[in-house]
């Protein structure tokens, strides 16, 4: 009789704690900048290996839709998002109260690719009268900044009639425009470069211009949210402040990234390939999802494992890098004034890591 | 005349019409009077039997534009002015421009509508529209005029006025007219002969000559002879039990 009672109590406990665990998880929507692929490996690992759950978060990772991540987060459909610095700062200048809370990639992976046969050796000198392929929705800024720096006008500038460079927008797949419609095409070092190679234009046939090498070193994948979320005293009735939720999200995300970078093969096999559909394979001869994502994982790891990360400060936005990005955007007239101080908030990152931003050397 | 579904629309219909006659076909609905007229005009073809119009088959007659046809409704082209509507057959038949105009204006004068040449059909009353359609049928000067209950939709007063006007036209132009109606007074007033038809299957019951003197006037309708003829027509219709059939 006694045995049965113990069993019943235990069972009640078990059911109760399970239900409780379900209830206590805080629902968080995180908007990714692109389709699921190794670019977001750390997020998938954090979700699937339970790092988010351990922080009390139930995170839904949203693939890109027809709106930019900032539009989605600003509208409240997602609480957090990943995007690039130029996109974030221009939105901030136009009054959208978005806030940078953690820097995932410490280096830029943006490149422009041209066939060697086009004879484009120096972009500034050779691009006049040519076409460049760009993705819209805030992904065109690195190219815009480069052309401005070269003194070339482009059709992305609403104040330039008869622009020097024609910008061609296209959805996702560079094969739509390259090399027939454009001489130069945007390509991320960890994705489209390999897709273009798969189309039959490998490194022997194309020149890859890394924008960082051309003085356009704009920070890319970062975590952001809105002032509304950060200042929330009781995030979705969880009892936690928005700041605390952001800190937990950063902590688990960095944990996920560290794990992914350390266990790349397993990450691709277990956490990337199962979530990525048609869009994560390469193109042409390299249209194999596993091969393409394994390569992408290695490339992305290089962008993560750089700068502050190598000093044990993963996720930290190095103030000098930030200032360099701001200065560049201001010089090229993409920003008209310095962003307000509230654009970057180190608080959640400090809370997540126990470090203090002012200790950075 | 047998329709493909086996319905016999017209059975015994032997009739000869002399030039300059005004023949009325009268009978209740379904007696085949419109069918007979459409056979004459080659708008439909008979399964058996023979029709000759001035020695030609109906098809030859139609192709040589030997007749004008006036329908139950005016059937005017609403995008054309009254004058342009009267000119329509002349354009199709390739009359030269100035002649088209002269003929159309003359025809409009004949039906008393010269003042409405520039109007569109919708600006005219039903009776006026039907007069335009008569002018149109006469515009290319066919010897023969087929009229299928042209005044059936009009009120009694308008109808009697148009009857009088039609008789004047007939006298002035000397056309041969075959006229379908279901109105006994109209048939008696207009015709030189009345063909009484009975239904199911449609056949010619009898032919009644009308010996009322010409020119006929409003007073003609009040004469004893008019009533006698009307009675004769009515009795012929009743004899064929036509009155029993209604659609």
């Amino acid at each position: 009789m006694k045995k049965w009672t113990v069993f019943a109590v235990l069972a009640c406990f078990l059911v109760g704690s399970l239900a409780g665990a379900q209830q206590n998880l805080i629902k968080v929507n995180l908007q990714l900048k692109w389709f699921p692929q190794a670019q977001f490996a750390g997020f998938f690992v954090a979700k699937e290996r339970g790092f988010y759950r351990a922080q009390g978060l139930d995170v839904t990772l949203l693939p890109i839709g027809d709106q930019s991540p900032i539009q989605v987060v600003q509208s409240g459909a997602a609480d957090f998002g990943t995007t690039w610095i130029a996109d974030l700062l221009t939105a901030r200048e136009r009054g959208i109260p978005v806030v940078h809370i953690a820097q995932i990639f410490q280096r830029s992976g943006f490149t422009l690719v041209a066939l060697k046969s086009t004879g484009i050796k120096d972009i500034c000198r050779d691009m006049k009268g040519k076409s460049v392929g760009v993705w819209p929705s805030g992904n065109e800024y690195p190219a815009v900044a480069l052309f401005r720096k070269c003194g070339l006008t482009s059709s992305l500038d609403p104040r330039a009639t008869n622009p020097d460079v024609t910008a061609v927008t296209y959805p996702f797949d560079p094969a739509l425009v390259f090399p027939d419609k454009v001489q130069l095409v945007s390509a991320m070092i960890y994705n489209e470069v390999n897709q273009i190679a798969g189309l039959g234009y490998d490194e022997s046939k194309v020149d890859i211009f890394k924008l960082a090498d051309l003085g356009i070193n704009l920070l890319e994948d970062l975590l952001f949210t809105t002032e509304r979320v950060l200042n929330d005293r009781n995030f979705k009735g969880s009892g936690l402040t928005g700041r605390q939720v952001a800190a937990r999200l950063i902590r688990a995300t960095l944990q996920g990234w560290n794990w992914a970078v350390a266990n790349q093969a397993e990450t691709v096999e277990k956490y990337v390939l199962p979530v990525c559909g048609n869009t994560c394979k390469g193109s042409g001869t390299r249209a194999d999802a596993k091969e393409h994502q394994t390569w992408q994982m290695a490339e992305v790891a290089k962008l993560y494992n750089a700068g502050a990360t190598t000093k044990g400060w993963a996720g930290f936005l190095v103030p000098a890098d930030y200032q360099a990005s701001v200065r560049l955007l201001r010089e090229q007239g993409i920003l008209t004034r310095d962003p307000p101080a509230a654009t970057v908030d180190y608080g959640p990152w400090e809370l997540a890591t126990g470090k203090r931003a002012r200790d950075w050397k | 005349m047998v329709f493909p579904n086996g319905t016999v629309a017209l059975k015994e219909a032997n009739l000869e019409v002399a030039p300059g006659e005004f023949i009325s076909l009268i009978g209740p609905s379904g007696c085949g009077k419109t069918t007979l007229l459409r056979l004459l005009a080659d708008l439909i073809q008979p399964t058996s039997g023979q029709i000759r119009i001035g020695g030609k088959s109906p098809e030859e007659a139609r192709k040589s534009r030997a007749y004008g046809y006036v329908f139950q409704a005016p059937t005017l082209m609403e995008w054309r002015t009254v004058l342009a509507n009267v000119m329509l057959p002349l354009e199709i038949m390739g009359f030269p421009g100035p002649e088209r105009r002269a003929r159309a204006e003359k025809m409009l004068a004949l039906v008393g509508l010269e003042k409405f040449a520039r109007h569109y059909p919708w600006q005219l009353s039903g009776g006026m529209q039907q007069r335009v359609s008569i002018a149109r049928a006469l515009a290319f000067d066919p010897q023969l005029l087929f009229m299928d209950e042209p005044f059936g939709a009009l009120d009694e007063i308008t109808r009697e006025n148009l009857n009088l006007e039609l008789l004047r036209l007939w006298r002035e132009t000397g056309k041969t007219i075959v006229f379908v109606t279901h109105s006994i007074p109209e048939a008696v007033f207009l015709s030189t002969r009345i063909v009484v038809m009975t239904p199911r299957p449609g056949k010619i019951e009898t032919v009644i000559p009308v010996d009322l003197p010409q020119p006929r006037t409003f007073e003609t309708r009040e004469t004893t002879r008019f009533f006698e003829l009307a009675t004769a027509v009515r009795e012929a219709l009743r004899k064929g039990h036509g009155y029993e059939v209604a659609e």
Partner: protein
Amino acid sequence: MKGWSLLVMGFALQIAFIVRWWKEVEVAPLGLRLLIALGVLLLGVGLARVAAQFAHARNPLLGFTPAALTLLALLVTAEALLRAYQVPPGLVPTPTRVVATLHGVRDVLLQDAYQTVLKEALVGYLIGCSLGVLTAFLVSRYLFLERGFLPYATLFSSIPIVALAPVLVKMVGIDWPSKAAICAITVYFPVVVNTFRGLTEVSPMSLDLMRSYAASEVQQYRWLRLPNALPFIFNALKLGTTLAMIGAIVGEFFGANGQGLGFRIQIEAGRFGFDIVWAAIIVASAVGIAWYGLVAWVERRLTGWHVSFRNG
């Protein structure tokens, strides 16, 4: 006259606030916001009374006055509210900002309009309409086409063909011909269906009449079916102007060659340049209305006889 004074007071109140708050960056205090509300009230009552005065206006310009005043009142109120609440221009730009931007970027927007309207929409429209009319003639002439093709045309004319845009951009390429193709296809089906109806919805008596004239088939089309179809064709042509504009703009969302109103809208919406987005929308609307008006004018000239234009 009382309506007018209310209206003037309402406008004065809103404009005074806008001038006062032109350079401020703070949300306006409650008192000022209540004044805006009062302004809205005055404008509303004033408009209602003024509109009643114009209810029987014969002159079309005078009849349009209440609508114009309403638009003006809405714009002034929007300007005041957006400034009072400091709504970021990246979300909703104020009307004055849109107008200033429209003026500032007019050259580029005109180039965009040239690409979108004259190349993409107009070329597609002309191709779609002429092929549509031609097809309708054939369908009305050959029964097997009416049985075998027309049901599909009817089906396609009632579904949003513009959903084909991404497919066509992928097939034809990102240059303007892919957008012209989208416009041509969206315009084509309604033109086929309407023209067919116009060519075939003729009274049997009219056909008998043509037969009694021994008219050839060509003559039958020339004198009866075509004129009868004109009002139907023009309905489709007017609808087509709207469809072609939509097709061209939406088509550019799926890939464009550095120019065009749709390209501009997409690029600027992505970077929160909504002042330019609105300016582009204004240009697109103006062009769309002008185009529709032109077709409607031609329609009036050619089918002035039609029942829809009769007045008394």
